[in-house]
């Protein structure tokens, strides 16, 4: 089988007509001969994938200026190497390039768009040209800002003729078999007649498909007792049979050749294939082709027409996995592409015209997408289906995703939160750091983002990406903790609604959050992204409470969990108003929490003459307010168990300081009862109980 991207293919060697301008070094021939006869010298092409590293960053560079259907673009991805962990950092792609072909060197200049903000968005790349039979040379990239100041310089070695490499696993339902090759010259066709299969069709597009060895026969029983596939059954089958399935963005995808039909095949319509993984998180990992339906429609298995449509369907569905939309959804209904429908094209032209003209290829803008669009727009499990899907309109976007590519730290970080918050409601997240295997690990247990180990990235509804910055730096020595099989995780809850940048969630809409934790070895462990929504107030009362909560002083009070500070008086007044006027509203629990915790502790006032006076704790007030928080939390309308644990321990301490051990015991017994009802891991519950007991016995 011919491979147009193989190193030995003539497609990838350029015929260079050497004239008198050529150097002796390149031709290695006497100059007299050059003057009389042109000598043809074969040189390697430049296009392909290059890789290099510098100061903890790795660059994957894609140069696309010659070879088969060049897009005349460059693009690339940066990865951060941190300890034993490699994380995606960001992507760049060029606009139109200026390419200068010298006899011994190629120089490429272009302006870049990037997924992160940088002034160094102009690049010059030089690549020495090498003779065939010699290795391709490394590319040297130097970045500049708009005034011409030099940024970083990378040297990236040639890696592959392919721009991207994908692992493809093909499984089949028992009773059918995987499709092989089709000779495009078997029926009327456009383009050059050639034998194609899925791998070579993608190779022509510059994408290397590496078939896994995990081909599996999927029983029809996986399609349910009715033997009719649903998307849910296909998804389940993927998780059972895809040998390398992984719910993270990965360059890998799964195709199932089905014997049984899909439920969307009805009397008036037939489904030949579907990229079924278009809901939930980490989409675009799997697709299915319904071969019996194709064979029935096109003259039976083995007919040229059935073979042609089966190949087309395989390539088309995998195209969706690359986040390619149908041609007409990209305003290109007349595109002769794998991503068009033959019958839709024929409706606009004439019967049979699609196949008579189709050259069995993607269109130019689709090539740009799969070769050069930002990594998360293309990679399986990256952006959701149809998001940033290569419309060819130069759309841009920012994202906060820096998923781990290789995590050998033995640790994982979970991030969770309520899915919906009222406007003004304090946004509290839960962080959980845990072992990924049974090997013990010593970690710094300062998990709260107030300490510098954990960072929270927030993508706002307007697309702006910010990092949560705590109001004050909390400097503290490490708290080393051994995570083991018996004690495999630590958890922390954190208020991230207000920080150095003010309120982070002060607009209704959907926010995307991600957490990152620095391990003692310096590696960065990222959580999965989570979505939270801040909803519009649904009543005048909610609107009033939102206004009372969304003030700078109130934000600081939420952050500090209360203060007597005179400069925060307006905030305390607002909380008083919430408790007095809207005490029955579930949102009043936060005002009660802040005032309650503050009442439970002594507060030091420093006077103008630096004299310190102490406002003593108020056990009665603390008890009243924190009991309200307890009650509401017990009814499911309050705060998370970690926050409640903190508040009730403060209330108990206040009782103890007042000498009321009975009240303290009752508070802590209530707390224990509450915690026992929560879904808390056994070892963490045991730790919480032990801490409560210590409090009482001290």
């Amino acid at each position, binding site marked *: 089988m011919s491979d147009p991207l193989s190193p030995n293919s003539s497609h990838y060697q350029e015929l260079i007509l050497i004239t008198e301008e050529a150097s002796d070094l390149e031709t290695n021939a006497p100059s007299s001969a050059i003057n009389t006869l042109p000598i043809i010298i074969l040189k390697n092409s430049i296009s392909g994938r290059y890789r290099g590293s510098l100061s903890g960053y790795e660059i994957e560079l894609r140069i696309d200026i010659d070879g088969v259907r060049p897009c005349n673009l460059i693009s690339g991805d940066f990865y951060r190497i941190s300890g034993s962990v490699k994380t995606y950092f960001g992507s760049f792609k060029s606009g139109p390039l200026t390419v200068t072909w010298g006899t011994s060197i190629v120089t490429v200049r272009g302006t870049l768009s990037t997924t992160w903000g940088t002034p160094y968005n102009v690049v010059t790349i030089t690549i020495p040209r090498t003779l065939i039979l010699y290795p391709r040379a490394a590319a040297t990239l130097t970045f500049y800002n708009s005034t011409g100041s030099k940024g970083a310089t990378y040297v990236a070695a040639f890696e592959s003729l392919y721009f991207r490499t994908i692992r493809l696993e093909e499984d089949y339902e028992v009773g059918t078999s995987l499709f092989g090759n089709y000779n495009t010259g078997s029926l009327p066709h456009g383009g050059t007649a050639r034998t194609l299969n899925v791998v070579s069709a993608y190779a022509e597009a510059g994408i290397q498909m590496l078939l896994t060895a995990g081909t599996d026969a999927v029983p029809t029983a996986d399609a349910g007792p009715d033997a009719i596939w649903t998307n849910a059954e296909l998804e389940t089958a993927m998780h059972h049979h895809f040998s390398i399935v992984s719910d993270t963005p990965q360059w890998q995808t799964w195709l199932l050749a089905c014997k049984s039909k899909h439920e*969307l095949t*009805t*009397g*008036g*319509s*037939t*489904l*030949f*294939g*579907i*990229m*079924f993984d*278009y809901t939930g998180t980490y989409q675009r990992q799997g697709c299915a082709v319904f071969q019996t339906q194709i064979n029935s*429609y096109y003259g039976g298995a083995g007919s040229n027409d059935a073979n042609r449509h089966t190949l087309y*369907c395989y390539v*088309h*569905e995998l195209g*969706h996995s690359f986040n390619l*939309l*149908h041609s*007409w*959804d990209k305003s290109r209904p007349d595109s002769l592409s794998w991503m068009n*429908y033959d*019958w839709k094209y024929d*409706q606009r032209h004439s019967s049979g015209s699609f196949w008579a003209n189709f050259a069995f290829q993607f269109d130019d803008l689709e090539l740009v997408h799969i070769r050069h669009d930002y990594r998360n727009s293309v990679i399986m499990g990256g952006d959701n*289906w*149809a998001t940033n899907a290569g419309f060819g309109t130069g759309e841009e976007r920012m994202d906060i995703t820096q998923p781990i590519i290789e995590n050998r730290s033995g640790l994982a970080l979970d991030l969770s939160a309520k899915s919906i918050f009222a406007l003004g409601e304090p946004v509290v997240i839960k962080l959980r750091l845990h072992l990924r295997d049974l090997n013990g690990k010593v970690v710094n247990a300062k998990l709260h983002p107030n300490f510098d180990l954990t960072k929270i990235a927030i993508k706002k509804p307007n697309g702006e990406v910010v990092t949560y910055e705590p109001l004050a730096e909390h400097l503290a020595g490490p708290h080393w903790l051994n995570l083991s099989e018996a004690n495999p995780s630590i958890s922390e809850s954190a208020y991230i609604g207000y920080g150095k940048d003010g309120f982070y969630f002060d607009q209704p809409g959907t926010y995307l959050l991600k957490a990152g934790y620095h391990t003692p070895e310096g590696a960065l462990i990222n959580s999965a992204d989570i979505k939270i929504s801040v909803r519009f107030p649904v009543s005048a009362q909610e609107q009033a409470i939102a206004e009372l909560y969304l003030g700078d002083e109130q934000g600081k009070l939420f952050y500090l969990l209360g203060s007597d500070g005179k400069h925060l008086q307006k905030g305390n007044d607002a909380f008083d108003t919430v408790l007095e006027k809207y005490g029955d509203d579930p949102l009043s629990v936060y005002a009660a929490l802040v005032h309650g915790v503050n009442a439970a502790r002594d507060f030091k006032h420093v006077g103008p003459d630096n004299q310190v006076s102490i406002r003593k704790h108020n056990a009665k007030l603390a008890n009243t307010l924190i009991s309200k928080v307890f009650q509401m939390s017990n009814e499911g309308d309050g705060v998370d168990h970690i926050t409640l644990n903190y508040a009730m321990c403060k209330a108990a301490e206040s009782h103890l300081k007042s000498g009321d051990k009975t009240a303290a015991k009752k508070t802590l017994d209530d707390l224990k009862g509450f915690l026992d009802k929560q879904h808390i891991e056994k070892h963490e519950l045991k730790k919480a109980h032990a801490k409560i007991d210590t409090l009482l016995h001290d």
Partner: protein
Amino acid sequence: MPTWFTVSFILCLLIYDGSPSGSVAATTPGPMTHHLYLALQDGFNNDSVLITVNGKQRYHKSGITSNLVISLADSVDIPMESDTAVISVEVSSKQIIGTLTVQVTDTPYVAVNIHNGNRVEMIPSKDSFRYL
């Protein structure tokens, strides 16, 4: 218990060769049933759609959205007694309406699209629609 005569009579009916004189279908003609298949395909986005065929309401749903994976929002299978169908598709959420008359016996499949968000486009076909 059935008599020998009854059994023989039933057997005779079962092996009857279907000559015109004895055809039940020929002697007692009933309504010929065709099917009209309407496929709501592209351009729908949380729309309310009302379909009438030959003056009768046959479909009324809201929240109709095209699934970009296969470019299909919904489909309707309508049994027809007449050969001709006058189809009216009203997308009330976009305040647009389209009408088409088709010979169901020739083109029983009709694709319904919303073109540029402001026009109902209906394309009849003799072949069923294939999605991928």
